[in-house]
């Protein structure tokens, strides 16, 4: 058995990871768990950038730079989101999205 690695073999695990992220984003109730699902989705998109760059335009680096900047953006977004979650937990004593109704009108 001798199979060459092709782009599809990298895209399918990444797609699976994205779908897990969607499932978790909808079903989880803890805010940090929702953020973890969001990280899964962002990460699968980063894989896709690198894979498309590597297989379709191997001489260029644009996909790699997109992944690089997406990783930096994900780090910034996580830091802010965790700051907001810690602040929200101080208000409602729990990291559950059901208890966050202070801003409801």
């Amino acid at each position: 058995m001798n199979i060459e690695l092709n782009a599809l073999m990298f895209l399918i695990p990444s797609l699976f990871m994205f779908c897990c992220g969607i499932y978790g984003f909808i079903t989880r109730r803890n805010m940090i768990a929702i953020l973890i699902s969001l990280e899964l989705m962002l990460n699968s998109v980063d894989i896709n950038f690198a894979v498309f760059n590597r297989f379709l335009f191997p001489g260029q680096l644009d996909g790699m730079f997109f992944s690089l900047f997406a990783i930096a953006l994900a780090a910034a977004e996580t830091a802010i989101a965790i700051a907001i979650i810690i602040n929200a937990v101080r208000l409602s004593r729990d990291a559950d999205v059901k208890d966050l109704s202070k801003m409801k009108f």
Partner: protein
Amino acid sequence: MDQLGGQIVYVVVALAIMAFSVLAVTTRKILRSATFLLFALFATAVIYFMLDYQFLGGVQIAVYAGGIVVLFVFAIFLTSHPGDNSAKLTSRKELTGILAGLAMLIVCGWAFLDRCTTFAKAMPEMKNPDMSVIGNRLLSSGEGGYLLPFEAISVLLLACIIGGIVIARKRTND
């Protein structure tokens, strides 16, 4: 022999990505969820190494596995009781989640299979981009340079640091 080794690494990494991402969203203990996320991110770094993007793999390990997951663990310890199980899902909510995930899987899977001939090519030869090329591209303002996004993201990270401190600090006057 080299190719066989590559295939074995590929199978292990692909299975690890799928297994750990399922576990990360289905386990009911939040700290385990963060740990499985860490393993999934490591597997992603291995994919970057397989694709010859060594620098990207290093950044993935340093920023994601080293930074973000540690942040998650601290946030879990600050906000919840890590030993507790989360509440059992209602079947309606679970059904909605599975339906949304499956819809995405079917639409994108169909799109992939439809373009099977475009994707089913062997990996083309590529020289590993060395650090001087990456550094020059990152700081050049000419054709294919990334100076503007580089500067914009540095301002964004500064704003993010300040914002994080302002939002999360304790207010003493109320």
